[in-house]
């Protein structure tokens, strides 16, 4: 399909912003209970979005088939989210509202998301908390027995609900338990250790998947009236990220290969406080919660020779006198200091390291120092205890206790990984890839441009624009799965009630299975010398270097050539051990790396097309005289949705123009 104007329509219902969803929900077509019993739905993925959607669709009476490559639906990476989940409950009476949560999300996303979707997200956020509490999610509570909230990510209200530092785990277990109940009732059939490796289209509609049974290697054909992808983000295109090892983009790219559009792929989020890379063998990066920046001060040595001495192990942070430290966030952003948003803090750390002041052997690390906070809390505690003129050692001891109460588990985790005591030596941190705002293009119904193919949670592009606010990922995953998709999928399925169960012996299924088999055979036939892992590592380096925290047209152009060369080398020199019809993690990895390479090229093309800086996308050519992001609303207020035409072709750009009728476009400033 080649449209002339290439303009996409988000199918947003008409009416006032605040009434759209309620009105639409009350009028959209329904599927009658007797017909639901005949309609099958495939849900791929069991994270917050997938598990909540599968459970809810099962409760509604659909025949649900749910897939995960894990051994259990409880393992998806939503489980690792630490901070919390936002909801416009206004339990604090601090002026929060649906509109304010909507506004903060649109602004935080640097005005690159769709107003109607974001408003709906804010609107259903309150129901998520009700649902989770009813399931037994043990959120933090106050002494009165009511739910506690905290402020998160620099917003002015306290709307974040949390369960210690394990909010994602508790919410996922809530959804997993609901899913387990539906499995026991027979409404959901669960397929563990199954990975989707092909999408099946029939008459232009998504009607099934080819799933590889990871234990036997069998390519199984599964049919349904509709397919829902809840397969997460693509952060592992960078190789090193805070994502789990098995997070991948294969399901999404298989859909893209069949015509689904990939939207805003260059919008990726880099989290400023992660433990830096220590060696080549390193397999992943670990996030340290954003909350640490409330008390930690970020610095590097002001003198390059001091930085070098620290890198070489000749000096430690403690040898650098106060006057020779550069607290660069406080210097550059006096109003917000260490609390500037994620994208700003990350870029500043990169600049400091690029200038040669990094403090770990790789040169890529800065200090996060708690000594001032320890002393301040210690003095205050001594005051409370009535100690007059306490010894310095006593002050530090008391201060360390306060810090331990606030961040004890994080400090312990840091010490386990780094082997250093963060109470005595400042933490070493560096930004790392954490979340991807881009994803499959979906309309207001969360349906992709392929009829019958839906995408929810991190795997779609819809709600976070160019930058996601803290504690909003959990909100979006559960909003899509519990409260949006189960309704909107009816618009497609209501037209399909007379379609019989899909026959997996149909030629479309055989063709898709053959295609999958050919891809696998092709990889085994290469018989080269390099492992899939080594190609992945090299791809990650290219994308991180040229499409990471800051980007230039020149770098991106070169990156595209490098990715293409890497693809050629991959198909010429891959070494794949083992056989196809067995548990073979190396084959799983190789199939995923092949898709990451294709995605990497689309990302770079997208970043090159977007001649502006916004949110996580910083193009060096587009900055203000003092080095801040320069957004260009007149030309780039659109969603870029890429149509893939094959690995050796230019993808085609489709645009969904963004209209802002309810907010005024402003420049973010943290000076």
């Amino acid at each position: 399909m080649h449209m002339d104007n290439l303009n996409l329509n988000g199918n947003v219902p008409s009416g006032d912003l605040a009434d759209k969803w309620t009105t639409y929900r009350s009028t959209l077509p329904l599927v009658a209970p007797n017909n639901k019993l005949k309609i099958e739905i495939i849900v791929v993925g069991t994270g917050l979005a997938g598990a909540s959607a599968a459970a809810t669709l099962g409760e509604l009476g659909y025949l649900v088939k749910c897939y995960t490559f894990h051994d259990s639906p409880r393992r998806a990476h939503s489980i690792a989210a630490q901070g919390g989940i936002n909801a416009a409950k206004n339990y604090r009476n601090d002026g929060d509202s649906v509109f304010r949560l909507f506004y903060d999300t649109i602004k935080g996303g640097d005005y690159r998301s769709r107003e109607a979707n974001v408003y709906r997200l804010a609107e259903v956020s309150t129901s998520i908390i009700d649902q989770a509490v009813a399931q037994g999610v043990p959120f933090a509570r106050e002494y009165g027995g009511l739910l506690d909230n905290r402020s998160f990510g620099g917003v002015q209200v306290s709307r974040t609900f949390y369960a210690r530092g394990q909010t994602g785990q508790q919410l996922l277990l809530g959804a997993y338990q609901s899913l387990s109940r539906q499995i026991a009732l027979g409404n959901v059939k669960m397929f563990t250790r199954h990975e989707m490796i092909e999408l099946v289209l029939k008459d232009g509609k998504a009607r099934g998947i080819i799933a590889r049974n990871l234990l036997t290697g069998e390519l199984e054909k599964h049919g349904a009236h509709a397919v829902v992808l809840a397969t997460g983000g693509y952060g592992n295109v960078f190789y090193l990220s805070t994502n789990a090892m098995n997070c991948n983009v294969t399901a999404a790219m298989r859909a893209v290969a069949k015509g689904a559009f990939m939207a805003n792929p260059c919008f990726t989020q880099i989290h400023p406080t992660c433990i830096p890379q220590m060696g080549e063998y390193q397999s992943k990066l670990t996030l340290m919660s954003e909350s640490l920046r409330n008390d930690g001060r970020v610095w590097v040595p002001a003198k390059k020779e001091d930085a070098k001495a620290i890198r070489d192990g000749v000096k430690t942070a403690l040898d650098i006198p106060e006057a020779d430290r550069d607290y660069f966030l406080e210097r550059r952003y006096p109003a917000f200091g260490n609390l500037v948003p994620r994208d700003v803090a990350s870029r500043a750390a990169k600049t400091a390291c690029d200038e040669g002041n990094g403090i770990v052997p790789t040169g890529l690390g800065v200090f996060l120092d708690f000594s001032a906070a320890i002393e301040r809390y210690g003095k205050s505690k001594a005051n409370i205890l009535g100690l007059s003129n306490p010894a310095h050692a006593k002050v530090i001891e008391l201060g360390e206790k306060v810090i331990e109460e606030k961040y004890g588990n994080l400090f312990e985790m840091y010490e386990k990984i780094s082997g250093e005591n963060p109470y005595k030596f400042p933490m070493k941190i560096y930004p790392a890839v954490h979340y991807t705002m881009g994803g499959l293009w979906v309309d207001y119904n969360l349906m992709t441009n392929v009829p019958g193919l839906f995408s929810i949670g991190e795997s779609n592009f819809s709600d976070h624009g160019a930058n996601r606010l803290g504690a909003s990922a959990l909100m979006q995953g559960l909003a899509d799965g519990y409260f949006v998709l189960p309704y909107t999928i009816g618009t497609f399925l209501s037209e399909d009630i007379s379609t019989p169960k899909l026959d997996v012996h149909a030629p479309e299924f055989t063709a898709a299975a053959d295609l999958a088999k050919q891809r696998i055979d092709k990889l085994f036939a290469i018989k080269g010398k390099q492992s899939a892992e080594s190609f992945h590592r090299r791809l990650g380096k290219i994308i991180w270097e040229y499409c990471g925290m800051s980007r230039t047209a020149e770098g991106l152009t070169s990156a595209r050539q490098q990715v293409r060369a890497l693809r050629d080398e991959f198909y010429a020199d891959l070494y794949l051990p083992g056989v196809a019809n067995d548990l073979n993690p190396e084959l799983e990895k190789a199939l995923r790396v092949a898709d990451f390479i294709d995605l990497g090229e689309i990302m770079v093309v997208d970043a090159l097309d977007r001649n502006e800086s916004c949110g996580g996308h910083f193009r060096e050519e587009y900055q203000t005289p003092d080095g801040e992001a320069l957004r260009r609303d007149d030309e780039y207020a659109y969603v870029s949705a890429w149509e893939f035409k094959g690995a050796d072709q230019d993808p085609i750009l489709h645009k969904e123009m963004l209209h802002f009728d309810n907010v005024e476009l402003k420049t973010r400033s943290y000076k």
Partner: protein
Amino acid sequence: MKLTLKIWRQPSQNVKGKFETYSLDNVSEHMSFLEMLDVLNEKLSFEQKVPIAFEHDCREGICGTCSLVINGQPHGPLQGTTTCQLHMRNFKDGETIVIEPYRASAFPVLKDLSVDRGALDRIIQAGGFISVSTGQAQDANAIPIEKDVASHAFDAATCIGCGACVAACPNSSAMLFTSAKVAHLALLPQGKVEAQKRVLNMVRQMDLENFGNCSNITACEAECPKGISVSNIALMNREFLSASFSSNDAN
């Protein structure tokens, strides 16, 4: 560091396994245990040998996918730590390390170090939930819950479902796992409504899955990476007894 590794190799569930010995040089003390296995696997690949199958995912101690029995201890020597967060600095240069899969009849070995822990999911499916469908919930603050009670429930709810408790127990009992979910839900007012039915069904499923009994050895608590307390087992026994007396309907 230089290490000698004795690793359990088993091609599939129905084939007999055995230990193979590997030596690995240049191990950095900063590596995690699983990164050390990554390096060994890369080496095996280049020698055209089949890499060792082991399970892992988040590598930050929360998903519960990683397992392994290292020198006789599930998740290795460091207390309160999953295998993925165990670092090589906890081992000595020249050391011999024995690496095995979890051993329990309810956890059949699939390949090498991978086992099937599906039995734990089936225990949850038997009743480890609150029967509330989407949209039925009342306002989240409608029922106040005492802070200490919520906190107690949370402690039980932090179980990551890794199965180390089963691997640590000489009887291969899943009492710690099952009781953690029973306690989490029974402590909360939302979960009390179907508490009796829940405990009976979960315990029945646990027995059907061939897990052993609890004989108060408490190795499960000692090896649990999340420090789940055996007091949950006492709570479950209490719940189970009272449910058995007052209910004749387990379904």
